[in-house]
């Protein structure tokens, strides 16, 4: 039909990896996307500056949830500094599909939640009008 709903996106949506809550999490962050009502919570267990376990829970469209699922796999075992270096391109590469401006907010909700959790503030500029 088209690239947007490639099988691996649907697979992550139907069978999200690392789905659930993490009781012993050291970082818990909730964010949402007011445009679509997508919701996401990320739970990170950080030991010695390394992310040793990741879980997420959320509700939303296939793009936002697949993005979170893929990011959770990518995060496991990374150092906090490596995770802090993740950016928009990291997510787009993970998804591997062309994302239009309207769906970018869905795709980047996972990154926004991660960064807010790691830094304690929202540092992700997902606005297309930034210069």
């Amino acid at each position, binding site marked *: *039909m*088209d690239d*947007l*709903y490639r099988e691996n996106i*649907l697979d992550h*949506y*139907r069978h999200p990896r690392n789905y659930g809550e993490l009781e012993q999490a050291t970082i818990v962050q909730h964010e949402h996307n007011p*445009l*679509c*009502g*997508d*919701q996401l919570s990320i739970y990170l267990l950080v030991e010695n500056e390394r992310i040793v376990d990741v879980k997420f829970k959320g*509700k*939303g*469209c*296939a*793009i936002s949830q697949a993005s979170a699922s893929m990011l959770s796999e990518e995060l496991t075992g990374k150092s906090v500094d490596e995770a802090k270096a993740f950016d928009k391109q990291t997510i787009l590469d993970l998804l591997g599909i062309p994302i239009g401006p309207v*769906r970018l907010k*869905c795709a980047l909700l996972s990154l926004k939640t991660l960064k807010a959790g790691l830094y304690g503030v929202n540092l992700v500029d997902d606005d297309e009008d930034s210069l």
Partner: protein
Amino acid sequence: MSVQTTLDINAIREQFPLLDQSINGHRLAYLDSTATAQKPLVVLDAMDRYYRTINANVHRGVYQISEAATEAYEGTRRTIGRFIGAKSTKEIIFTRNATEAINLVAQSWGRANLQAGDRILLTVSEHHSNLVPWQLLAAQIGVELDFIELDAQGRLDLSKLEQLLTERTKLVAMTHMSNVLGTINPVEQVIAAAKQVGALVLLDGAQSVPHIPVNVQALGCDFLAFSGHKMCGPTGIGVLWARRELLEAMPPFMGGGDMIKRVGLRESSWNDLPWKFEAGTPAIAEAIGLGAAIDFLNGLGMEAIHERERQLTHYAWDKLSAIDGLTIFGPPAAERGGLLSFTLAGVHAHDVAAILDTQGIAVRAGHHCTHPLHDIFGVPATVRASFYLYTLEEEIDRLAEALVLARDTFQL
């Protein structure tokens, strides 16, 4: 498959150049007229002609093209007045859209006539445009908001109307036709009850005026707000109608040129109606475009348009309700205008809309500016397909096929 109609839909579609294009290799099926309607050639031509031949500011120039521009602009006021049954052009105030018209009433009439403890009755299905202006007013002067709720089928629950209309209720502000449920609300019943307690009634006509015959005298309302762009006119032009004596007593909404009679350094006096409420250079071309749109709709007949949309809605209801996993929100087809909002089990509304887009079908996905209503439904978003005078049964067939494709793609 086609249904009998008095309108020649193919001839109508020739008037809408935008519809004749391909999206993703498919003919565009535009099913989002509730958000904004497409524009016929007569509207595009009227605006083009204005800019090419008589563009000048209104109400000022003593030269010929300015007089022609003024005449065209003011002529639209007569067209609109006749269209909705106003008594005078003094009752037709141009605004940017229905939203601005409602804000005008809240800030001008509301601040001048209401005080802390007075109550405004709304419904839980209001568009944000008929909710947030009243929240702002409530924060400013301490009025209280009450709400008519919905019954299980999404109709207004009027069983508690008498209790909701208290002696402190000064205004009922409600939508004539829901932009999500499509319900044509029984506003006559509410207006009659409101009058019993001396409350005024504002109707949000953003969805009703483009689609069904609306006559303010027959309805008995006090304010009516609507937008040009949802009725085949351009964006940037809307209308507030109100009874003349109310407008006469209301203070200006915005200050500036054209709304004044005499200006001193520390005080001014106001222009006559309707210009008292039109500060600054108005949207002249847009007003003229709206006039052309109303002439176009009148030429087809609002009753015929409404009848056609009724056919389309029944047709779509039958097609869509046959799809497994699809839930339509709101009352049966017979009680609605031309729109259906629905969810598809397991597929987020935005994913549905994205898949429909790959098939060239344009629908709205989201909360349609009605957060509280979606909270009541318990869903974050719905998909909305809406119809207008140019919609084809074939487009609804394609919608149904694409929805099955969306469901099968997700295999849930």
